[in-house]
């Protein structure tokens, strides 16, 4: 069976969930071969094998952390040359898309970004995309070269499918461009203990209606009662009430959880672009005319300062 390369997103050997989802999708079109790079690359093997990787190609070098993007492109290109895969799958992070694009160009291939589903087709894998702020669904395929496709988080269920996961060292020689952009400093983001926004099953978001950084505690309390991630609209972020990394929308994260709860958010097109594919949508807004109500499965027209604490209390009581 044809091999499919899967680029592994990991932090010091801990594989992030979107990569495990990619392994599930990869099995629909061939045999997954994972490529893990950088510090802790070898430590990813057990998790990858458990989820279907027949082989894990690894390479550790300081270049991956010291320079932007290009060393990873060089390594993936080496992996493609070693394996001749039927497709290359990369998680749709900002960096993942840049790596995939440069790789596609080098391979003389097309690229599809932000796929939300993938299936085998007669002429190669067919990718589903959700476009124009999720108002259209398209199906596309790559017509030239080895398909390079980036896939959004939450596009497939993670399935265990034990495979050999034989670790092999990948041999990589870095290109002249590899050291072009130096990373001169790095400040890791502090963990909040909450789930990752893009990976969470439930997201609770606050907008301008939350009216102040101090009131985001209400949103956080609701999120914690549900084990959810916290999101924010751009209005809340621009006002400095919540970090930009939590912004949901076109220029923030796009999320697709089982449940999305929007409080004090009007539902502007750019916000919808990042949450419209959520399975169940709930909104609390005091304006009955707010466009967010067009999307909801359940909406409460009311003051969030009354509704949110009451909801949180009910959930806590139910869980107690």
């Amino acid at each position, binding site marked *: 069976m044809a091999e499919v390369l899967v680029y592994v997103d990991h932090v010091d050997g801990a594989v992030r969930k979107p990569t495990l989802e990619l392994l599930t999708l990869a099995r629909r079109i061939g045999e997954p071969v994972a490529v893990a790079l950088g510090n802790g690359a070898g430590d990813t093997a057990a998790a990858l094998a458990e989820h279907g990787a027949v082989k894990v190609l690894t390479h550790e070098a300081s270049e991956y952390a010291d320079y*932007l*993007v290009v060393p990873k492109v060089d390594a993936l290109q080496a992996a493609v040359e070693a394996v001749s895969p039927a497709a290359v799958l990369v998680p749709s*992070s900002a*960096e993942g*898309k*840049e790596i995939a*694009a*440069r790789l*596609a*160009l*080098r391979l003389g291939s*097309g*690229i599809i*970004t932000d796929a939300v589903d993938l299936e085998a087709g007669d002429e190669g894998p067919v990718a589903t995309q*959700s476009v124009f702020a*999720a*108002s*259209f*669904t*398209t*199906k*596309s*395929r*790559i*017509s030239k070269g080895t398909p390079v496709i980036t896939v959004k988080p939450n596009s497939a269920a993670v399935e265990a499918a034990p495979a050999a996961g034989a670790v092999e060292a990948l041999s990589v020689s870095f290109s002249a*461009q590899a050291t*072009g*952009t130096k*990373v*001169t*400093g790095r*400040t*890791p*983001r502090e963990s909040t203990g909450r789930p*990752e926004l893009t990976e969470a099953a439930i997201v609770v978001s606050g907008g301008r209606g939350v009216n102040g950084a101090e009131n985001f505690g209400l949103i956080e309390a609701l999120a914690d009662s549900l084990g959810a991630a916290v999101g924010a609209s751009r209005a809340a972020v621009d006002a400095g009430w919540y970090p*930009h990394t939590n912004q949901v929308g076109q*220029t923030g994260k796009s999320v697709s959880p*089982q449940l999305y709860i929007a409080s004090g958010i009007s539902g502007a*097109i750019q916000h919808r672009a990042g949450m419209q594919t959520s399975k*169940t*949508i*709930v909104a609390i807004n005091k304006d*009955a005319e707010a466009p967010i*109500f067009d*999307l*909801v*499965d*359940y*909406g*409460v*027209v*009311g003051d969030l300062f*009354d*509704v*949110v*604490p009451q*909801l949180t209390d*009910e959930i806590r009581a*139910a*869980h107690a």
Partner: protein
Amino acid sequence: MSLRIVVTVKYVPDATGDRHFADDLTVDRDDVDGLLSELDEYAVEQALRMAEELDGAEITVVTVGPENAKDALRKALSMGADKAIHVEDDDIHGTDAIGTSLILAKAIEKAGYDLVVSGMASTDGTMGVVPALLAERLGVPQVTLLSEVSVEDGTVKGRRDGDAASENLEASLPAVVSVTDQSGEARYPSFKGIMAAKKKPVQSWDLSDLDIEAEEVGLEGSYTTVENAAERPARTAGTIVKDEGEGGKQLAEFLAGQKFI
């Protein structure tokens, strides 16, 4: 010598309009008003700020798009860019990201550049890949997705706020930069700027000016094929209740019914 900055700007259908696909599965650009992609306003803004910091810089804005894409160029010129290049050719219709990056790279090389500044993503395709593709094609460093950027003595520095960490980046010129909407509010064109823009030069190039064959771009030259585009079915109307003291409780019941609690 003054720094030559080229800013890539895209003309896109207004996101608040009724965007849809034409029969050939390309974006219908006739039915919806177009404008300068809002995220490219941040690119123009940062180029203007860099030029203000530096002793002399020339800002050229370039777009690849149909006749009315000139509107995007005019907007950028009225913000303060010096001149514009419009790459227009019937054979460009339907070009994908790989092809777009070819046309832009050739145009940028022909124009001459020390620094390319792009937006983080267009507001229609929203792929966020063109700046990286340009760096690959031009063979220069990519310093992308910056929320802060500066240029000094032939070096570009910036901050990239990623998921796991915030990174400080540095590269020598020439380079390709892209900036996010966190980089700083874009200015509004002044009346003077709008009047001045009318007199600024807009050059038009077609594929032959860039030594690109028609087969390399357009729907024919595309590396990707859209097989189907369907409007997402409207969501079935949800339940909406008015809070009369029990709104939180009612919502909790709904969530319990859906097995979220």
